[in-house]
């Protein structure tokens, strides 16, 4: 919630401090003028001279709101003297107050009321009132998975982190941004290590196009660092809030064409084993450690430092085409897969019929960007996004509106911006207003590219039968993994990112578990798999069928982490049971 949401309306109307944007100014005007009209008439009926009472508050409110609005453009209230100049003065003031955009950055009157100072962050682990021990509640972005941990440590150096791991006799769970959705960052009564203070850039070589960072750094921080050199991250997910360590542990992917899991852009990493040893690993050096770290959810080690590949930060232009789902595969292979100019691509399948799709591609261009900033500007709130997501999830009519009214309008707008911009979204835009009754959750499934039609048909049937409130199914493409023991892309795959709305009551969670297991079976029947950063509804049997090399990982874990020090909900569920 933005700071100005918490202030009383009287502060907005009757103090000349701070800044307000155009929308707030118009809103206050729509309040002030009708109020004046009402009071003027009511008091006028009593006695015409009684109307004098409302002039002082009226003029003061007009002065205060005008001053705040002038501040927004980095102007002082002295500009109001302009009103004494006939004709031009009032016109200039009306323009400045009602139409002129505020300064994008903070100015001498305060921060931009529309902009967030930083990407959305999950709060620190929650203190328990009146408890003297160091126990804390660690939760993830969905707030559905609270876990009580014995203590939270936030090391600031790699040495400190090694010491904590070596000396602790408790269990350890690791958290970064905590944007996974199934308790992958916590384990009951374990020591939780919050990695977010380990956020330094260790080495950066624009010529070699590599960067070496501590694992607690966020992708958005790297973007800020490399953008000035016209460089961009080679593979990351769409949202830049996550930490590098977290993204590597889940082996994330984005919407890139010709790439796939993030492991393909990792040159090397330094991992800390359960005994505190720091091991340098790459696909060629200590490959067994490397492939048991990336995508393996801290099973055997904590990723501490990473060296990543970078790419040119090209401008990309959006284009789109709507089609039937059964023609998408053909379209993808003929138009997208081999097109070297396509940087990002995804296809959105429209619920509730799952019959039509919209393919969106971002093509390399030399045209001038249509936005002013090179990086994604951060908004303090996303009321429009929140409204649309709410509308799409409310009813079949909402979904129909999206497919036939909203999306055609949204995509009619020409969009050109930089690669860093398109990979810099803020999770805040997806956040619901409240999670009291329901929340938005993700799941993801993978099948070999030739199984697209078969799996998507099975999926649609399951969603329809269970009346799942799916908001969107986004299709991504990934090349085969280079060897992670928990590789979700055992071959070239399509990823099905399912975004749905679910109730937060226990019965709702149970219902989700039922159709999730059905969907996992559907993916397995096509030789595919499902993604692990989400709710761990899969049975142990499903887990091992989807990830056949998990046995190998578990064997390595027994060797390197014999006391089962590294834990989280995932290993508590599948490793313990093993």
């Amino acid at each position, binding site marked *: 919630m933005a700071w100005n*949401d918490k202030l009383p309306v009287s502060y*907005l109307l009757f103090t000349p401090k701070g800044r307000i944007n155009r929308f*707030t100014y118009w809103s206050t005007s729509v309040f002030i003028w009708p109020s004046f009209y*009402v009071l*003027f008439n*009511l008091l006028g009926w009593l006695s015409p001279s009684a109307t004098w009472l409302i002039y002082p508050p*009226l003029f003061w409110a007009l002065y205060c709101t005008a001053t705040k609005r002038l501040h927004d453009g980095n102007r002082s209230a002295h500009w109001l003297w302009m009103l004494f100049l006939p*004709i031009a003065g009032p016109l200039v003031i009306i323009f400045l107050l009602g139409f002129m955009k505020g300064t994008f950055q903070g100015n001498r009157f305060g921060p931009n009321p529309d902009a967030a100072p930083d990407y959305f962050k999950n709060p620190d682990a929650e203190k328990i009132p009146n408890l003297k021990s160091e126990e804390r509640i660690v939760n993830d972005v969905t707030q559905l998975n609270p876990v009580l941990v014995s203590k939270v440590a936030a090391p600031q150096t790699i040495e400190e982190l090694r010491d904590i791991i070596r000396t602790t006799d408790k269990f350890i769970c690791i958290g970064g941004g905590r944007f996974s959705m199934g308790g992958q960052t916590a384990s009951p009564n374990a020591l939780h290590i919050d990695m977010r203070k380990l956020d330094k850039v260790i080495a950066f070589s624009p010529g070699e196009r590599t960067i070496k960072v501590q694992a607690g750094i966020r992708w958005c921080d790297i973007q800020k660092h490399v953008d000035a050199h016209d460089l961009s991250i080679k593979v990351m997910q769409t949202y830049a809030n996550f930490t590098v360590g977290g993204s590597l542990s889940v082996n994330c992917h984005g919407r890139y064409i010709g790439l796939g899991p993030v492991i393909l852009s990792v040159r090397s990493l330094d991992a800390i084993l359960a005994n505190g040893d720091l091991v340098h690993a790459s696909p060629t050096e200590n490959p067994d450690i490397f492939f048991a770290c990336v995508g393996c959810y801290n099973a055997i080690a904590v990723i501490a430092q990473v060296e990543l590949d970078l790419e040119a930060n090209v401008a990309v232009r959006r284009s789109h085409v709507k089609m039937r789902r059964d023609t998408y595969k053909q379209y993808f292979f003929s138009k997208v897969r081999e097109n070297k100019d396509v940087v990002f691509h995804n296809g959105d399948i429209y619920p509730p019929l799952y019959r039509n799709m919209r393919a969106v591609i971002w093509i390399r261009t030399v045209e001038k960007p249509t936005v002013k900033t090179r990086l994604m500007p951060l908004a303090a709130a996303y009321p429009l996004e929140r409204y649309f997501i709410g509308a799409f999830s409310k009813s079949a009519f909402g979904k129909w509106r999206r497919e036939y009214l909203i999306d055609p309008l949204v995509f009619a707008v020409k969009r050109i911006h930089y690669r860093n911009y398109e990979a810099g979204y803020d999770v805040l835009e997806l956040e619901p207003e409240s999670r009291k009754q329901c929340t938005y959750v993700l799941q993801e499934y993978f099948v070999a590219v030739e199984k697209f039609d078969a799996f998507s048909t099975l999926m649609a049937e399951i969603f329809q039968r269970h009346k799942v409130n799916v908001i969107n199914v986004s299709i991504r493409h990934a090349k085969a993994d280079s060897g992670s023991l928990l590789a979700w892309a055992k071959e070239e795959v399509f990823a099905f990112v399912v975004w749905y709305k679910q109730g937060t009551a226990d019965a709702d969670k149970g219902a989700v578990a039922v159709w999730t297991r059905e969907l996992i079976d559907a993916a397995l029947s096509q030789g595919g798999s499902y993604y692990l950063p989400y709710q761990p509804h899969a049975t142990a049997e499903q887990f091992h069928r989807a990830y056949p090399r998990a046995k190998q990982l578990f064997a390595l874990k027994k060797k390197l982490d014999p006391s089962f020090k590294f834990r989280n909900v995932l290993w508590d569920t599948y490793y313990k049971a093993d």
Partner: protein
Amino acid sequence: MKRLYALILASLALAAGIALIQTRSPTTFAVGQGRVLPAEWLQPNPNPATPKADIRPADQTFLTFPEWFLVFSPEEQALAFQNRTSTAFPFMAHVAQFWQSYRIVNDQIKDAFPVNASYHVMICVIGVSTTVEYALKATYEALVGRLTDTGAPITAEDRYNAEYMADYVAFIKDHPWYEFDYSTRFKSLWTSTPLVGGSFMRKMERRYFLTTELIAKLLYAKLIGFGTHQAYDRPLPTTAVVLVKDSLVHLPRYDRFAQAAGTLAARGEAFKEIAGNTSAILLSVLVPAYGPTAFEDSRTLFTQPLASDPTRKRVVLAAPVPFLDRLLVRLGQANLPVEHVFDY
């Protein structure tokens, strides 16, 4: 922000309620619903004796009412400003009268004649711009003018305003308003009106107000003048009248037509065609507040109390051209001044 939105909704709802209460005291009183004139009064003249160049469409007598209301309104202002400042003038009542009377006159012709789209566009343009002007003036006078108001026009600037309004009315009776010489007015406001005198705040405030009005109108008149020359032809300065004795006479058009027609009627002349028309012609009469509103040989469409002078009201009526002489004579005998005859 949620609390602000709740407050906005509440204030808008209350404002709508107040506005609803205010519509309970109307400013224009229609005599009937929809068309009140008999259909035979609205028949076109099949064989006009008037030369073709002098014929004007029959529905124009009704359509010119809104335009003329924008002469009556400053006329009322010029009269009112003799005795009190413009600050207390009921501008919004005039806005309401404009639109309400436009609706009533249009009700008379909309089924009888083809729609004259370009005339309606013109009425809407002048209506909207007057509405904006009057609303701005009313708001300004309520917010700022009221703070310095002296009641009676005691400052040189308030008297200047009354003078300027009277000159303006005299001018627009025979000329398009946008040809009024605003720039000379603006210069004389600043050169020949004394800067010193009592009520200094009022003087300065009025100077600001008049300067704004004169410059804004100067610019707007240039714009409209340019647009009008592009879109409409220059109007004829006379109205052709065929008398029953079959002679064709050319009377002055617009404001002086009423007097000229009245003189002819008093001499015993009767009208056969006016601008080629035999159908109903519209006229307005100023009547004491409790005076008669219905007259023989005519139908009254509506009455409007003069917003600035509660002792009088305007009665707007229509009569077929052949009845006009009798009606004018009767009004003359009753000593009721004809404000205007809308000579197409």
